């Protein structure tokens, strides 16, 4: 691993995004639009907006970062730039962490904007600190980046890559406790949700919503999400091959 090459990769990815203003605008403003929409959908039940909205502040960046990273790295594979990089003195970790850093920086912007709009403009009523909520949203985005980098290895085309979103992310949204408390689900699903990282992210965000100070299990939740994210980043690095058939 080389710090210089990791940073150069991150800068390159951000420069690519910089030439694609429309993607940047969509990444930043679509979450705001959806959050606003949700605010009016739950107009007669603000408490429900608080509950769903707080969790969505983490889920949005996860979905968008998952899609962008998996397509970006897939393009790297299909255009031959990856083969060229792998013939050069670039470490696999340099590439993976370069991507994580670039999209992570972008996620800071995205989650920051969405959290600010949610709390100040849409009256998202938090008992705890918005900073803790933002912190958890960022970790969740990092998880999305890591998952995106990992699954792009299993997609041969953009069509396949996009389908991994409903296949891997939507089930987690369904069982993470957002739709029904996890302990009221069919026990098999409850067990499944125990090993899925999004459950921990939503648990932490709901904790920030409901209580002041650091919520119960917050550190455990942070550790699980960070651990899973790092684990998938490491797996993503393993899927990179210098030699291909």
């Amino acid at each position, binding site marked *: 691993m080389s710090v*210089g090459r990791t940073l150069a990769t991150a800068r390159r990815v951000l420069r690519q995004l910089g030439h694609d203003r429309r993607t940047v605008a969509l990444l930043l403003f679509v979450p705001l639009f959806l959050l606003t929409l949700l605010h009016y959908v739950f107009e007669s039940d603000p408490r429900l907006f608080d509950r769903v909205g707080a969790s969505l502040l983490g889920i949005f960046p996860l979905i968008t970062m998952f899609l962008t990273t998996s397509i970006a790295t897939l393009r790297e594979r299909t255009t*031959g730039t990856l*083969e*060229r990089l*792998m013939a050069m*003195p*670039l470490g696999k970790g340099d590439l993976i962490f370069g991507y994580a850093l670039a999209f992570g920086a972008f996620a800071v912007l995205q989650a920051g904007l969405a959290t600010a709009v949610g709390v100040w403009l849409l009256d998202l009523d938090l008992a705890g600190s918005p900073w803790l909520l933002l912190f958890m949203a960022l970790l969740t985005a990092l998880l999305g980046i890591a998952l995106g980098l990992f699954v792009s290895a299993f997609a041969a085309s953009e069509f396949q890559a996009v389908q991994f979103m409903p296949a891997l992310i939507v089930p987690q949204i369904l069982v993470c406790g957002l739709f029904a408390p996890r302990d009221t689900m069919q026990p098999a699903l409850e067990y499944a949700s125990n090993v899925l990282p999004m459950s921990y992210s939503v648990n932490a965000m709901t904790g920030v919503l409901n209580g002041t100070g650091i919520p119960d299990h917050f550190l455990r939740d942070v550790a699980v999400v960070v651990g899973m994210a790092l684990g998938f980043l490491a797996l993503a690095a393993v899927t990179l091959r*210098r030699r291909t058939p």
Partner: protein
Amino acid sequence: MNDTSRPAVLARRLEVVRGGAPVLKELEFSVPRGTVTGLLGPSGCGKTTLMRAVVGAQARVTGRLDVLGEPAGSAALRHRLGYLTQAPSVYLDLTATQNLDYWAAVLGVGRADRSEHVRSVLADVDLTEHAGALAGRLSSGQRARVSLAVALLGAPELLVLDEPTVGLDPVLRRSLWDLFHRLAAERGATLLISSHVMDEADRCDRLMLMREGRVLAEGTPEELRARTGTDSVEHAFLHLVEADRKARTP
């Protein structure tokens, strides 16, 4: 390491299997240092696979393949090779300069020297005017030259160029061949250049003629013409194919 008497590339009983079928069959050849060696043969004969094996990108390579005195694919070689893939491998959503700046950073060119180095490489491929244009907006020939410029970065000892002159106009083709010879003469670089166009053969110091995963012959263009009693490399190639078929059918 810089033993110039040893060949830049040496293959003994080199084989590559792809999708269960052998693509390269018991290849034996060497590429002398400081030469411009042309790898000629029809499309699908294994040129690209051979080049990928040399740069260490090809899986399932058996036999011996030494590059600059090290086994192909060694980590130490990654600083010493320049590789041009057949399809232009550059980032379409970056400008020519931004592309080269990134690739130079990957090769470890220091920040202070990078912009000067990038400028000189862009001048080599005659793209100075388009330095600030997005690679995706360039014509296919210009984009191919951005990709070629990447292979020139970092003063590599061995350049492996997969069809670098395809689709370029004759004037530009000649200036690139001049550049290739200049790199060999002035810097002592070795160039392995593939082409499926036989009329580029006479621009090479040495040739390897390939067909169906085998090397039919290697030598200078004059040697190949003399050996086959023909007046062009194209005729020499046809002659060799015919002789090979006779030799293999009892």
